[in-house]
């Protein structure tokens, strides 16, 4: 069987999760690879969550929040916006393609866009191939 990436999505409750629901109610089909986890706000997303997901076997992590200026909590999404560059830097240093993690703004009315983002993300992660993490750690263990 060909490789199907596993993607974990962290979505804010007010815009993106609602947008994903809208994709559903609008029956906009998209790649099934994403597993969505709901948080109240993208500001709740700790980089640790992303590392945790990668460590647990995710091949990609998608973070979605309200568009800048749209945040239900006025500026939570800016907090995520600030963490993102640092997170990418860290991933690069750990030798993980930063493209495996992606931050997108998806509003509650953008069901279609959510689907496009997921499809695009899935495609890109598919091109990157499986995440090396679990395999490498297994190889480390095997060596001992």
């Amino acid at each position, binding site marked *: 069987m060909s490789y199907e990436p596993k993607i974990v999505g962290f979505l804010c409750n007010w815009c993106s999760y609602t947008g994903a629901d809208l994709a559903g109610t609008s029956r906009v089909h998209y790649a099934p690879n994403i597993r969505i986890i709901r948080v109240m706000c993208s500001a709740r997303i*700790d*980089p*640790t969550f*992303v*590392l*945790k997901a*990668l*460590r647990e076997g995710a091949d990609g992590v998608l973070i979605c929040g309200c568009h*800048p200026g749209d945040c239900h909590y006025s*500026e939570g999404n*800016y*907090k995520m*916006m*600030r*963490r*993102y*560059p*640092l*997170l990418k*830097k*860290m991933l690069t*240093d*750990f*030798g*993980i393609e930063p493209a495996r993690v992606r931050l997108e703004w998806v509003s509650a009315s953008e069901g279609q866009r959510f689907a496009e983002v997921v499809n695009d993300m899935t495609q890109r992660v598919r091109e990157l191939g499986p995440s*090396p*993490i679990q395999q*490498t*750690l297994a*190889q*480390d263990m095997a*060596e*001992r």
Partner: protein
Amino acid sequence: MADKKLQIALYWGAACGGCDVAVLDTNEFILDVAAVADIRLWPIAADGKYKDIEAMADGELDLAIFNGGVRNSENEHIAHLLRQKSKLLVAFGSCAYMGGIPGLANLTSREKILETAYRRNPSIEWGNRVVPQPETKLNGKELEIPKFYRRVYKLDQVVDVDYYIPGCPPQPDRVRETLLAIVKGELPPKGSVVGAFDHALCEDCPRTKNEKKVKKFYRPWEIKADPDTCLLEQGVLCCGVATRSGCGVRCPTSGIPCRGCYGPPPGVTDQGAKLASAVASIVDSKDPNEIEEILAGLPDFTSFAYRYGVAASLLQRSYRQ
């Protein structure tokens, strides 16, 4: 137990020796230890043979203090051995606890390390730049040296550990308190971090803290930081916020930002990621470009945030192909 002397072993894995010095730094207390304990193994200070340990009965040792990480097969072998022979195994110092400075090597690869050390190192002037192999045939004989692993492990990634004493090195006072507690049998639940507090460094740091908003980051030498104000809010990256206290706030009180050697406070899974989260959150901008610019003031953030904790981090190592 009072009538019988404690049976103790000390060992260093991938370490600098500082931890052993820290034990000595307990000063005269070490003599008290010697009074109540038999030191059965201490490679840096006393002569002891691995085979003596191997010969012991399981659980014959009361306490094994392991400092340093596990970098090669020898380290691992001794770790297993001590685990088997000792009632208590303590990971002593940041390296045993988290991989420590040697753990930074996990951000590169074994091949690169060997390449640098044996082939590309500018100081190598002699020989034919041979990279040592675990097994070598020389004059028909087989020579063996410990196998250099692909990466560094922290101790508990190899064996079951009872207690952890963080620090690079652990503070002598903490060491003393801990040893006393062990002697007295006043031990916290297994798996605890001992010799350190359950809160972050800032709590003990005398610098004044204000609401934090940072427009620009500085390397320590780039700014004459106010001695009484929190370094982080002045734009100097200090790990204290995401580091367990116990060191006595030595660095920040000397004007040096905390380097995080005591590891994450309880409740924090990944020290570096948490530090990143906190530091980025206080960046004072809403403009993506400006944010990038401000964060560019933190070169090599990863090595800084995981100075001691790469091996203990969620990702543990680099995956660069």
